[in-house]
């Protein structure tokens, strides 16, 4: 007993004691399920039990599934669409608010950030109503511009744009917050020196702000791609758990969820999960390479 307590109080043992609770949960509920998921992706399930190894059969059926390639295309288009808006727009807005030219800039930052406090479920239901055929957007467009109502949520081609509208609303403020944190770290003296040399604000933006914001931009880019490829809650809520008209809003994550919990094809769902993980992993590595983060470390 004394020996045990002496051991526990040992300075070499103490850190392991501190780590134990985290590590147990980490290993049991994160590492083990990953191993299990990879194993399951090679198995066929009858209900929850009775699995048999079937080799690459699940992967073959995933890749021959038309819905999978559509989900992949949808997710990729959605991610690119959000990137095209959610990097430049918040960046420019953050720079403008940081320029000292805008009175009450903190208030504007907070107001644009507010949507980020609503859960994705709430964002989904609110936009389900706003984008509905008789919803706010159509009423607004027809009264002000006389446009005929667009069937945002009932047309395959408009499903992804609808999701991108929601994403713009939900994430602009957060990305502004990241860029703002990056801007604070740029030394003011650089701008003062450039101003003395006669640089215009636009030149300062291209030559000082943008290059020095590179780490922040990289951070936002990685988060946006990882987040974009995992989009789930918004289409799930807006299109009542389905893929939307003509599967136009079917994302990879949504397809995995439906394969698992609507069709109960656990093996196929696991294979899709592995593929999604590989996609995200590959994209992240490419970005790290591209931005030279890895080279510095090795």
């Amino acid at each position: 007993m004394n020996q045990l307590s002496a051991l526990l109080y040992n300075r070499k043992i103490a850190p392991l004691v501190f780590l134990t609770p985290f590590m147990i949960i980490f290993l049991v509920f994160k590492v083990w399920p990953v191993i299990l998921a990879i194993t399951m992706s090679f198995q066929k399930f009858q209900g929850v039990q009775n699995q048999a190894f079937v080799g690459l059969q699940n992967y073959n059926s995933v890749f021959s599934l038309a819905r999978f390639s559509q989900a992949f295309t949808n997710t990729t288009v959605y991610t690119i669409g959000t990137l095209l808006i959610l990097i430049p727009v918040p960046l420019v807005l953050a720079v403008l608010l940081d320029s000292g030219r805008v009175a009450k800039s903190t208030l504007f930052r907070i107001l644009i950030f507010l949507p980020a406090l609503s859960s994705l479920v709430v964002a989904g239901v609110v936009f389900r109503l706003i984008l509905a055929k008789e919803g706010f957007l159509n009423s607004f467009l027809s009264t002000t511009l006389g446009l005929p109502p667009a069937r945002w949520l009932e047309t395959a081609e408009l499903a992804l744009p609808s999701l991108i509208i929601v994403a713009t609303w939900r994430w602009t403020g957060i990305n502004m917050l990241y860029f703002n944190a990056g801007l604070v770290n740029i030394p003011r003296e650089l701008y003062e020196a450039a101003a003395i040399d006669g640089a215009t604000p636009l030149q300062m933006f291209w030559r000082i702000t943008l290059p020095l914001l590179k780490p922040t931009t990289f951070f936002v880019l990685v988060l946006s791609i990882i987040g974009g490829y995992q989009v789930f809650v918004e289409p799930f809520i807006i299109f009542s758990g389905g893929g939307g008209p003509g599967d136009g809003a079917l994302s990879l994550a949504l397809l995995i969820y439906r394969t698992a919990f609507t069709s109960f094809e656990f093996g196929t769902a696991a294979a899709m999960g592995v593929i999604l993980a590989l996609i995200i992993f590959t994209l992240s590595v490419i970005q790290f390479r591209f931005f030279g983060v890895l080279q510095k470390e090795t």
Partner: protein
Amino acid sequence: MSATTDSSLLIQQDTAIRTQRRRTSVVLVILFIALSFVFVLPLYWMVISSFRPQGMIFAEALNLVPSYVTLDSYHKLFNDQPYGRWFLNSILQTGGFATVALVICTMGGFALAKYQFPFRNALFVLILVSQMLPFHLLIVSLFLMIIRLGLVETYLGAIIPLAASPIGIFFIRQYMLSIDDEMLNAARVDGANEYQLFLRVVIPNSRPALATLFILFSLEYWNNLLWPLIVFREAENMPLAVGITRLVNQYQTSYDLVMAGSTLATLPIIILFIFLRRQVLEGIASTGTGMK
């Protein structure tokens, strides 16, 4: 003579630049007022729709000042739906999750920051890399696991699998790196063992970081849908996010109920934000938890 013209010219130029600057400022302020309006509008619209009868939500969509206000939807929410129960579940599950996650991440983060042991850096990298894994990779295997463990429909099943947060332990580690080693050694010289050191020196010196992380964990669970959606099928056990999803997917959606439910679910976060704005913003900015 020429000197005076020069200076008056300069003054003229100066005022010209100033008027131009003022003009851009005015334009920018107008732009940001318009933008803020667009970003706040959906939330405002959600609130006013929750006070409208179902039939008027679309009919009066553009009316930003409701002509008729009713609390009907709120009555129905609590009388016809287990909304009160969902709210209580959300509070208890959120509190439970934030507490468990905070405790294990604080202990683990301290070990990673302030001790040397074999494979420490490899372990740290493994934890960070796991952050990149999409949760959808785990949903099937985790689901089967909690079935076997008998944790379906339980708070534990909803909380524990999410508790080992890579971002959480990373955040604590980064913060604790800045704790002065001299201070820790002084406490050791005074006879404190490692656990007393942790409880009496490290924790009191980390209060701001712990508070920030607790808030972030609370926001994360309160707003989370996917895992609770898988764990809970019974209405009485669900948290708000799953409950609202259920309301939306009912055969004939009562949008007044959905809007009231969404308003009440967002209210606690807005209140939290009003009082702890700095912690929320700094926490999100330093962890990148916003993209969930």
